[in-house]
């Protein structure tokens, strides 16, 4: 067996990326638990569970797109649009319906992004940069002012707890579990990964590349739509201005989890590790009371260190 770096291969699968993510997460947890009294309190742990939801949902969708070799910069705008749409519709429609429409809107944006990329061969970066702008504008066109749903049931999704675990965290966990199975065990998932490695080979294997690329962007749109609805429900107010720069954390989570931006490499598990790393860093810096702008300085440096470690 020939490999440039020592790798962890079990039963024929390469777990190196997962192992590194797990190691970094464990390290952060140990540091946090030993240096902060607050870290292991139930309140803080519940907090962590809640705060990983938005980044987590976006990161999974982003992973699927990144696997194809693309990128989806529009997710933050989709969060804003779908949240405010669901909140707006909840005035006239049953809340589950309003929320479903929100997620469907996310899928619709994803389909448009995907079609522009797959059908017309445009660069994903630019397509989703343009749709970032357009969808943000549409969110404001839909409502310039925040919308507060009057029906308290709108808050249910965001505040329900199942024992010690928030419902939305469970939803995110289900997305990652189902997503993991999708990527590793279904023909569509395998095809998406292979497309990122070499789209021409996949096309000649009789697999519809366009369809799968569009599917990937639709999944990202769905995740962003879900994140938007969840966020609106969690906050209780939907604002057209939320979600600016959310894509950056989602992308960072994927990369920290070892996904290659050139496509074809990445896993749901390792990406989830990346999400944990980001959330833990934020939590830790907050617990230590590090000032906001020093937090920024450190966060950037830590990301560099993590990817330097991963590179080894």
């Amino acid at each position, binding site marked *: 067996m020939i490999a440039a770096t020592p790798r962890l291969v079990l039963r024929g699968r390469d777990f190196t990326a997962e192992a590194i993510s797990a190691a970094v997460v464990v390290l952060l947890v140990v540091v946090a638990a030993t240096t902060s009294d607050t870290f292991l309190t139930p309140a*803080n742990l519940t*907090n962590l569970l809640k705060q990983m939801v938005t980044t987590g949902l976006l990161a999974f969708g982003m992973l699927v797109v990144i696997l194809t070799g693309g990128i989806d910069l529009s997710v933050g705008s989709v969060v804003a649009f779908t949240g405010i749409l669901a909140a707006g519709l909840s005035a006239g429609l049953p809340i589950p319906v309003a929320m479903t429409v929100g997620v469907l809107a996310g899928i619709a944006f994803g389909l448009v992004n995907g079609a522009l990329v797959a059908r017309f061969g445009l660069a994903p970066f630019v397509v989703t940069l343009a749709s970032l702008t357009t969808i943000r504008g549409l969110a404001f066109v839909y409502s310039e*002012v925040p919308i507060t749903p009057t029906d308290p049931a709108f808050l249910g999704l965001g505040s329900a707890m199942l024992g010690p675990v928030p419902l939305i965290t469970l939803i995110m966990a289900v997305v990652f579990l189902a997503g993991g199975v999708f990527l590793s065990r279904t023909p569509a998932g395998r095809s998406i990964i292979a497309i990122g490695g070499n789209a021409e080979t996949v096309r000649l294997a009789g697999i519809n590349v366009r369809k799968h690329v569009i599917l990937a962007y639709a999944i990202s749109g769905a995740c962003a739509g879900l994140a938007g609805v969840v966020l609106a429900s*969690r*906050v209780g107010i939907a604002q057209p201005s939320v979600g600016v720069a959310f894509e950056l954390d989602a992308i960072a989570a994927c990369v920290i989890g070892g996904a290659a931006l050139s496509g074809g490499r990445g896993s749901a598990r390792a990406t989830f590790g990346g999400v944990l790393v980001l959330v833990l860093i934020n939590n830790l810096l907050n*617990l230590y009371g590090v000032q*906001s702008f020093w937090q920024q300085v450190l966060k950037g440096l830590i990301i560099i260190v993590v990817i330097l470690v991963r590179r080894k």
Partner: protein
Amino acid sequence: SSGGGQDDGTQTIGVANFLLSGPYFSGMDKAIAAQAKKKGKIQIISTDANGDAAKLAANIEDLLSKNVDAIIISGGPLESAPAALNAIKQAGKPVVLVDRKFAVGEYTSWIGPDNKAIGVQDGQFLAKRLTDGGKVGIIKGGPADNSIGLARTEGLKSVLGTTQGITLVEAPDFGNWSSDGGLSVMESLLAQHGDLKAVFCENDAMCLGAQRAIADAGKAEQIVLAGVDGQNEALKAIQDGTNYVVTGLNDADQIGSMGLDRAVEILSGAKVEKDTVVPSPMVTKDNAAQYYDPNGTF
């Protein structure tokens, strides 16, 4: 479409918004336009710099090139724009600042709130309310260069910092002036300081998010909230007798319409006050009904 001194006596007033994408700022823009319509014979040209200071300068130059009769600047988080103010001065046009008073540079007139006073007001209310003392959390909007937020917090601290039995804890992270930001900052704050008695936010949007976090943590009975702005949702929460107990009115509608009036006065040659502080009445459960307008835009 080109401005000033048209034959029918219509006057053109340019509005330069630094950042429209916030309910307070778009409310301001709308109020100016609405007031102009009410007055009649005034044309409004509104621009948005989308948070880019150079673009604001360009927009103002744009307005000057269209020969507007006066300019209203809604500077939002921008601390100042000396070069743009110079350009307006050189063009010999009057400029009215609304809400944001620029730290440097020459302007004709400013209409806005006394942000520090609002903080003081909230602080006094909380001092009276927290008879047994306790911890008060502070959620700032950020970034660190936002002097509007700094003034509000400074006002609060000037009262509570010297009140016996009260400890202040400032959240290290900023809430970015938004409800979702307020929510997550509050959650972090609660994890470390479960014993808070009150929370002050630099605006209502963040307080509304914080209120959610408090409710989720089951601490609505324990913690009261104090905000700034008089955003509709906050007024309603106060009126409904929730743990949202106080805010200081910083009415975009009022400031906007006064700003337009001020510009018109100046154009008519009247001598006007240089700085006008719009009073920011304290809103509590007792008087919230008076300010809450279910159909208001902000």
